[in-house]
């Protein structure tokens, strides 16, 4: 990392379609460095933070994220994550993280069977993570979703353990911050919209914070995810 700028590495798979949004948010909105990382090149190019962006990698063939997980770059991403490197997966990126075993659980077909593309509200569960430290607990964020398979599922034992460990970071909620069935857009267990691993360095979420960083896009709440990430490096460096 250079003096004050972090470097975001945005992985590009065939079929990624939110890679430019993530790049734009990191570089032009947040003012840090960003570089695209082609999935065939097993090189993270010195990135401090890896983003697995949204999209339809490999056409969602077989299962969402199942083939991308075997791209050459994923070996590097997995070993980076195992060494404590910071990795976030957004939408399809979240699905890839689950398929690669970096995050528990899986994303099933939405219970409505429909692709859902709209702004939703998510509640910040706690701020003791490098992905939420710029928020306050209970913060309600307005962030869009765009997915057909966002229905988070894991075995009851796994759900219990991620709940107890504070690994659930975001839940779909209503205007009052209540997690209700009506505010759950896809049927996720416990309204789960985003989780991190037990070590706290890998995070996946279905909503798209990179698409909610500028007022012209209808919301700037997604910036808080990027601010949290950036703050966590600043704090660590002190």
């Amino acid at each position, binding site marked *: 990392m250079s003096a004050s700028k972090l470097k975001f590495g945005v992985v590009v798979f065939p079929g990624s379609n939110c890679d430019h949004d993530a790049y734009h948010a990191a570089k032009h909105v947040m003012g840090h460095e960003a570089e695209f990382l082609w999935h065939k090149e097993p090189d993270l190019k010195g990135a401090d933070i890896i983003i697995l962006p949204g999209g339809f990698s490999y056409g969602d063939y*077989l299962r969402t994220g*199942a083939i991308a997980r075997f791209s050459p770059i994923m070996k590097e991403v997995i070993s980076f994550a195992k060494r404590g490197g910071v990795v976030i997966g957004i939408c399809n990126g979240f699905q890839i993280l689950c*398929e690669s075993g970096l995050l528990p*659980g*899986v994303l*099933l077909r939405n*219970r409505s*069977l429909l692709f859902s593309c709209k702004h939703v509200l998510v509640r910040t569960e706690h701020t003791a993570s490098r992905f939420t430290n710029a928020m306050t607990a209970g913060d309600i964020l307005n962030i869009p979703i765009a997915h057909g398979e966002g229905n988070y599922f894991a*075995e009851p034992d796994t759900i219990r353990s991620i709940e107890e460990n504070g690994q659930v970071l975001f839940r779909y909620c209503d205007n009052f911050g209540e997690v209700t069935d009506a505010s759950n857009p896809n*049927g996720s267990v416990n309204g789960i919209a985003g989780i991190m691993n037990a070590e706290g360095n890998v995070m996946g979420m279905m909503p798209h914070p990179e698409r909610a960083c500028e007022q012209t896009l209808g919301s700037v709440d997604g910036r808080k995810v990027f601010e949290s990430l950036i703050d966590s490096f600043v704090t660590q460096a002190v």
Partner: protein
Amino acid sequence: MYQSIITITLRPSILDVQGKAVELGIHTLGLTGVQNVRIGKSIHLTVDAASEEEARAVTDEACKKLLANTVMEDYSFTVTKV
């Protein structure tokens, strides 16, 4: 050479929303006795292996590591000499 025919379905504990939707469609045909529609995948492979045992092991590894996600899916397969 051996041919493996693999069947992958959602685990019984998981609500198969696609199956439910198709079940409704079947009922609207008037076939109201149809229940428990589950939708899965059928994957066919030809495996170059020295024995059926080896072909089974190769198929099983492909299922475990890629073709099925055992968090949500079950798989089974048959192997026949071709």
